[in-house]
């Protein structure tokens, strides 16, 4: 039977597993091997994921499972995403959906965000978590590599109110060499599909001389999805199989983004300490509306939220925000 969750469409046989090793065949049903077993839960700022345009300033409970369905050479969470999930089960925590939602509530969180590995490999569990989260008044967000089937992406759009899709490269050569997938067409399709369902931001890690020449073509794609789509261009942090590679030049990459900023107003360049390209300006009048601190990989934070709700405080233009600012302690138990 074909696994219905990702574009690898692995053929599952009784007793066998597919590429991600997270699903198995049980009779004529594809089922999860390790449902509701999480690698971690931790309080974080929504900007760290990163989400810059969804509920700014809010507190989220970050969760993840194990494994992934693509094979990035620079995977920063390889110790969870690339290990055989069966060998990690002794350090996983089994948390049923209602208890997970309750943990988020007790930690004063506004949302639950799946961001450590790929949600497509744990979709049935996440569907159940979404029900519990909804009952608890929590929204959900995720990071995804976008390499799901249209049916799975439909489910992602139902579960998550805000999604950050990684558009890592376009050419088949890049996709095959760096991601272990044939091409990027399914990822682009996912971005378009999700943009019709929920709030979408996009992230692109840039490897100098490898995919930086594709930035303009990516900008065209994002402009066609929505000119104000937030786009997080990451300076690649050399890790995993690329740990011996050089760090890309910040000045050189930023120079390539200068022209693109004329076409897309919400381009951010970060994933390194101290970036000054993490603030949001009104696309019409240029007023500064949100400022942030860049602490590098997984550490960004809100500095000042200057909008009037979801509008520019100067010209009144509506901004591409999901919700508006959420006070850090808005959901604090007893606050």
């Amino acid at each position, binding site marked *: 039977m074909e696994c219905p969750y990702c574009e690898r469409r692995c053929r599952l046989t009784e007793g066998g597993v597919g590429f991600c090793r997270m699903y198995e065949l049980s009779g004529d049903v594809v089922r999860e091997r390790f449902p509701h077993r999480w690698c971690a839960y931790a309080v974080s*700022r929504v900007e760290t994921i990163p989400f810059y345009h969804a509920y700014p300033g809010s*507190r989220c409970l970050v969760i993840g499972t194990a494994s992934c369905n693509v094979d990035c050479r620079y995977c920063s969470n390889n110790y969870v995403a690339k290990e055989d999930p069966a060998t990690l089960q002794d350090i996983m925590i089994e948390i049923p959906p209602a208890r997970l939602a309750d943990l988020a509530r007790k*930690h004063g969180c506004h949302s639950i965000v799946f961001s450590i590995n790929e949600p497509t490999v744990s979709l049935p569990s996440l569907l159940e978590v979404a029900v519990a989260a909804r009952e608890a008044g929590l929204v959900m967000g995720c990071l995804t590599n976008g390499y799901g089937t249209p049916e799975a992406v439909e489910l992602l759009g139902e579960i998550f109110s805000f999604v950050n899709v990684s558009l890592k490269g376009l050419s088949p050569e890049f996709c095959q060499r760096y991601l272990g997938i044939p091409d990027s067409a399914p990822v682009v399709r996912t971005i378009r599909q999700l943009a019709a369902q929920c709030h979408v931001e996009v992230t692109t890690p840039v490897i100098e001389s490898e995919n930086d020449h594709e930035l303009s073509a990516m900008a065209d794609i994002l402009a066609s999805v929505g000119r104000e789509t937030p786009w997080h261009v990451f300076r690649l942090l050399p890790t995993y199989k690329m740990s011996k590679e050089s760090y890309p*030049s910040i000045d050189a990459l930023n120079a390539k983004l200068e022209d693109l900023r004329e076409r897309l107003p919400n381009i951010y360049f970060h994933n390194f300490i101290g970036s000054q390209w993490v603030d949001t300006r009104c696309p019409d009048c240029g007023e500064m509306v949100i400022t942030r601190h860049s602490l590098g*990989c997984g550490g960004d934070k809100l*500095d000042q939220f200057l909008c009037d709700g979801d509008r520019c405080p100067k010209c009144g233009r509506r901004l591409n925000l999901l919700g508006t600012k959420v006070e850090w302690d808005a959901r604090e138990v007893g606050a």
Partner: protein
Amino acid sequence: MSVAILDARQWQRTVDLRTGHQVEAKGPLVDKVRTVVDRHPFPGDRDPAGNTWVVDTALDFIKAYDPGFAFLTLARQYYSARYSPLSPDERAAMAQAALDEADRFARESGFFTVVIGTGGLTQATTPIDLSDLDGLGVASNWSARYAGLYDPSRQDLDRLSANPGLERLATREEILSLFGGAPGDGARLPDVMVVAKEGHYYKNTSLRRLIMIPARNTFIPVSANLGPVDSITDIKARLLDALGDRKVAVVLLEGVGKADFTVSSNTCRNGVDWYCYEPVDGQYLALTTGKHAVFEHNGGYRYFLDDTEHKPYPFSGYFTKLPTGTIGQDYPGRSIAVGNRSMFMHVTTGCDIACECFARNLYNQGVMAVIHRQDK
């Protein structure tokens, strides 16, 4: 104003440490520090050159600034043992390599160098799950032994009391009593502190498999050249005494206990009664301030409560203020701190210049150097 030079390799930006906002920093030290930092890109927490980076950078700062006091932390052996499956011989060799680097620093700098181990490590066993309580259990990534419990039910307390991985449950009042605090001192203490037995740890925030974690280090080693010391809180005063007539350095070796401490040493108490420090903020502050800071810095506080956009010092982790009474502040001469234990360098030492790796969960972001003072 303290300024921070953020160095992401071939690219620097200078910010006000308190606000995190870019500043046009001026002063006699700014260009010197920028130059030294640029010369020493951080190789990584577990990189074989991780400790060499500390010593080389410190020696470079000594040439540039001529300090009388230097505080160094060498942590490569700690991170490696914590996350990498190493044999006992490999771990011992790494500890010895760290001691050798401390010796190299002493020889090349000419400083009277006191070497201190933060305590040995032990094998991590099955994690303790605090997710299934009626109350809220809070553990942090870097504390294996201590966690906080908030609003626990009777059933929570009964269940935890029966958990074979736990050593004790200590109420806020017990912690206050242990360290001589008044009721008003307990605002950042949990309702109940959960204390794990040696080898056990709490599972929630750590993504990586833990291999070795801090042992129950009631005592830690201090090189014999400082003379006998009773407690970790006595070290600061002894160092200040020594600074009266010579240049002095402390080299702190993370994850090294008496067993691996091959230089002549004494031991000193690393806490009070059953409470022993792990190599985190509380231990650093006990060493650098000469006082126990458990009420504000313990493994069970809900640090995320402070993490609003109004929190000052955005590049200083969970610290909301810079501690006072540190050795760097109390020593009137020039001082530097260099280490691969990130923010602890600039927050806990109080040295005029503090240079540290900017790494989070082993992700190497670069280097941060803080200039607290330029007037000496």
